[in-house]
């Protein structure tokens, strides 16, 4: 088969844009949260400084091979997820590496980084790491369910698993978006979205005041820098999937920035005004409120 080598530089461009956008977006979110508390909050460039600082730390320790590899898995998961999904609809180059697989690949690749990171944190031997993973996994089982149902509903609706085709089906006006053609699925997915963004009330993985700070407790210096890098890329990669499935995708970068920002804001808005759920509360919440909507969505299609 022939491979279009130009995909690689264009993918790197995507990566670069999303990375910078992610760093700025994270700072913006922090600023918005600060404004809610009537603070000024961090400067917009603060994330860059933190990143450089962490790369610039002079010493590191290692708890073992897998501890070392944990952040690598995490970042690979973030970058891979971003590149397996077409970023811009209609652009041959910003379709990135989506030729490798369809929506299902993206859905399952989400776990690649999480799993690798969880294992790396596990090797640190820190009980909080395991505790955080235990909480996170417990929550994921319930939080992923409405999303899976929504994805299934959307796939049924468009009779395809190809992200590109799903976006294509939503072109031609805002009323073609899944948001309006299949509101139940979108509702279920957005509730699930709250659970996957590590923000209150579903931030029990990191839970700084309880298990400071969960899996990354032992990660520092350049490990932490890799995780921060991923923190800029991975949420956006996830949001891109939501954007493509439910909100008509994006055909150019400004629309992309806007949609990603608005979708992210859903979880931010909920997050800044919410306290934290316990694990069992969170699971019950998803099963009681989100899952029935998802079930209705797949029955309704």
């Amino acid at each position, binding site marked *: *088969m022939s491979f279009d080598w130009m995909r690689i530089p264009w993918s790197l461009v995507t990566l670069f844009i999303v990375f910078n956008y992610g760093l700025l977006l994270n700072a913006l979110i922090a600023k918005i949260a600060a404004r809610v508390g009537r603070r000024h909050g961090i400067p917009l460039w603060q994330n860059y400084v933190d990143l450089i600082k962490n*790369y610039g730390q002079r*010493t*590191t*320790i*290692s*708890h*073992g091979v897998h501890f070392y590899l944990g952040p*690598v898995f995490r*970042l*690979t998961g973030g*970058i891979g997820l971003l590149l397996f999904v077409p970023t811009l609809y209609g652009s041959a180059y910003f379709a990135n*590496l989506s030729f*490798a*697989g*369809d929506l*299902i*690949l993206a859905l*399952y*690749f989400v*776990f*690649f980084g999480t*799993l690798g990171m969880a*294992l790396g944190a*596990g090797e*640190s*031997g*820190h*009980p909080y790491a*395991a*505790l955080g*993973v*235990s*909480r996170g*996994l*417990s929550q*994921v*089982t*319930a939080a*992923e*369910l409405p999303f*899976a*149902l929504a994805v299934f509903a959307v*796939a*049924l609706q468009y*009779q395809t*698993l*190809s992200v590109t085709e799903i976006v294509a089906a939503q072109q031609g006006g805002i009323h073609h978006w899944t948001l309006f053609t299949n509101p139940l699925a979108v509702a279920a997915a957005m509730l699930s979205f709250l659970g996957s963004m590590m923000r209150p009330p579903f931030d029990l993985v990191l839970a700084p005041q309880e298990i400071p700070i969960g899996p990354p407790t032992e990660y520092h210096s*350049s490990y932490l*820098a*890799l995780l921060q890098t991923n923190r800029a890329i991975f949420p956006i990669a996830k949001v891109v999937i939501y954007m493509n499935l439910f909100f008509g995708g994006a055909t150019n970068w400004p629309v992309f920035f806007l949609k990603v920002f608005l979708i992210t804001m859903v979880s931010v808005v909920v997050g800044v005004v919410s306290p934290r759920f*316990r*694990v*069992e509360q969170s*699971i*019950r919440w998803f099963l009681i409120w989100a*899952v029935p909507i998802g*079930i209705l969505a*797949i*029955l309704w299609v």
Partner: protein
Amino acid sequence: MPNPILLIAVALGTAFLLGLLEERRRRLAWAISLAALAFLSWVPATWLLALATGQAAPVEILTAGAPPPFAINLRLGLAEAALTLLVNLTGLLTTLYLKDRLLDLGRRAMAVLLVAVMALDGLILTRDLFNLFVFVELTAIATAGLLLLSDDARALAAGFKYLMVAQFISVLLLIGILFAYHAGGTLNLDGLAGAPSVLGAGQGWILEAGGGFAFLLMFVALVAELKPFPANGWALDIYESAHPAFAALFAAASGTAALFAVDKLLTIGGSEWLGAATAIGLATFLIAHLCALPQDNDRRLLGYSSVAQTGLVLVGIGQRDLLGDRYFFVAFGLLAAHAVAKAGLYWLSGLMAERGLSAWAALRGQPWLILAFASFLALLTGLPPFPGFYAKWELIHHLAGADRLAPLGLILLGTLIEAGYLFRWFGYVIKRPPPASAPLPCPIHQALPILVALVGAWGLGWLWGELSGQTQLLLTWPLAFALLFLLLEWLPSWVKNTLAIAGLLAFFAATYDYYDPLRLIFALIFLVGGAIILLAGYATSGQRTGFYPSALLMYAGLAILVLAEDSFQFFAAWELLTIGSYFLILRGQAAEPHALSYLLFSLGGAFLLLTGFALAAQGAPQLALADLGGVPASLSGWVFVLLAIGFMTKTAALGLHVWLPGAHAEAETDVSPMVSGILLKAGLFGLFLLLMHLGRQQLYGIELTHVILWIGALTALFGNLLAAFQEDAKRLLAWSSIGQMGYALFGLALMNHLGWLMALMFVINHYIYKSMLFLSLGGVAKRTGTRDMYRMGGLITLMPLSFIAVLIGIIAISGVPPLSGFGGRWIFYNAILDTEARLPLVILFFAGPIAFLYLFRLIHTVFLGQLKDEHRRVREAPFWILLPQMLFVALLIAFALVPGVALRQVDGYIARFFPDGGLTWDGLSIVSHYGYWNPVSIMLIIGVIFMVVFAWLLFVNRRAQKVKQFNIAFAAERPYRPETTHFAWNFFAPYRKALGFLTLPLATRFWDTLADLLHAAGDLGRRLYTGNGQTYAFHFLAFASGLILWGLGVRP
């Protein structure tokens, strides 16, 4: 040809001759008895040979030189020859076995024994009713004599009770004979049977001649001789208290003769009486088995079993009208199995010093006795390749063909209960500590009879295989190969292992051309996969007695299964693999209860298969598997249900899963992957065949595949959920298997192209990763001495290869790209887009992420976290346990890269059944109707990104200080001990809080309650038998009067 009258004459003559001998010449007397019995065995043996080969015709012996009805006549036909041979051989072996005892008792005892044998011969040979009565009397006197010779006080009491019963029987019989003579004018059986009747010869003669009451009395008398329920307390006391060798004679010879007497009587009764015989037989069969269930005394248990078996033969006799010319094949099969096994078991019992069942653990001192014990149990339960198996197969098929479903069900239920207590006993023998006393004494004169019974058992198995008209199982290559290992037990295990691997591979190579793509995949897993797992066997030194015959028995079953063309081969293979795997599982340290529950569920499932096949065959002796689709629509739903439940028992579908966790977890390190990675696939293979040939079926308007869909989804959910809550690593894997099988079940039940493909992906993947995980965790458990995950931790540096295997395994299971598990998930999503059943999907979606819970827990709590004090010097698992794991790792990666190699073939094959919705190959991409997937690109992309990021980290972080396990930021304190720092126990406590209510062991409770109920019922039944003579007399009267009242009601 020796004159058959010699059977009577020689026995009687020798008995008299013994009387002439001096009392002190006991040795001589014994030798003479032995010689006489040898002669008595030789006579019917020659006849049997001649009659069977057609060199001789049945003969009538006219005692007074006149034909009947003027004189008594005896007949020696094939049946008589076989039965007298059985009786006399038992007598001979009993005499041999009783050497010490007889030398002690003297010539009188020997004479009585001879008379008893003679009387039984007479009972078999005679064709005259009054003569029958005489022999019954003689038998009674001789039996009582033998009993009264015992010094056990209880035996004396039992003998007395027996005499009382015998008198009742005699009186009834005599009166009956009087009336019969009055009505029929003759006492000759053939004469009576052939008496003229408007209904034809032998049909309802008594009705017309007014001899109904006469027949009734005789019937009651002779049936009472068979120890029917409830009039059998006396017999149980005899079995329990008499010398076991005598009990052997009583069970094997007397029972045989009495059964034949009833058989002869029924020839004149007409078919209505067959129903009565069946009913009595069934009641006796079931209730005796129930009573045996709570029994702990070996001889009394065998007594119950004898009573039950006699009942079963009576049922066989009762089906005479149905069986036609297969009547003798079936009835003799059941009878011979019972006689040989029971004689053998009683002889074994004679070796035991104590009466408790667990005292039989002493058998472990002599492996060949274990073999004998196992063979006898298999013979009794009717497992292949023994005669009872062939006989039951035919009986069930005939019953099903004639729509006699109630007896069919009851027979199978009784057999299941029987298997329950017999194999529980076997578990005791293998697992319980042997009694402290000296090693089992086994002098030659006691060993010889047991040996003869053992050889006889296998010989009969061969014979019935020949006579069955079905496949001769003993001559199939796989089974013969497995049995060969019985002879090779003395070799060191590595030789046997090599031989076994070579055998499996050679068989696969030899049969390669016979497989279609579907079967090829299963054959690859069963045979080649089996060989790979067997590599781990090299890690065990010594002889490993018992392992190879069991393992190869299982593989033999699998090999026959995948090649089976008709239902008989399929079912026989199913039973073989069940027994083999049962023996294998039982080898585990604490496997006793779990192996038993495995066996019972498997046999229960197998009996459902049997019923299903029998129903489908419509009275034919077997059914080509390909013809399953030809079953008439009225039956096909039921056949589907029976077969599906049978197969789902093996795949441990929800509700039928309770046997699996224990069985898989408690098995040995290299057995777990066999029974999990390989054996579970047998059930899926069956389901494939079922769905392939029967397709969608409905019952009462319910779409059955839809039901399976729900079961599959629920199984996946609960399997995964329970796995997350296990503390024991192997139990976790076992529950995970349940969940995985749920997925496969679901895929199959989707009944579309991709659903089947997904099921096949699961078959392949599950074999690879589950075998690998069981091996690695088995290796870890071996090194750390525990299976509790929270006791481990931090083993990654000490056991890196095991860690890699587990890591690859869990990535594959979880379906995370780039490994092959993702392929399964991808096909799954494509498959479900084609289905209309959406609600079960919700459950399956829920089950998916739960897998992450147990997978993370598995790898984290074992390999990550804190290393414990006592494990600081643990070494990596043995090479031979690692080798197959590394092969599996390579296989997984290869399969992840090029899944098309296997999938393409199968995809094409499945297209025969579901032409639509298949996959297409676009270069390296796999394309479905809905999506696409490019395994090589995924692997490459992920690999490249990973390496780049890794290189970057190495560059910025090249001087990391390696620290040790307590160098963690512990809230400014330091860890106290690794045990208190390793977060592992009750890992998902919050999850339990949220969803723990789903883990209530409802299925286990249900089956436990059922077992308790059966036990309680058995206990209730046991209370009938108080040991009090008056109670027994009452039982007898109740039985006799009940039967007579019934008879009068039917025939006024």
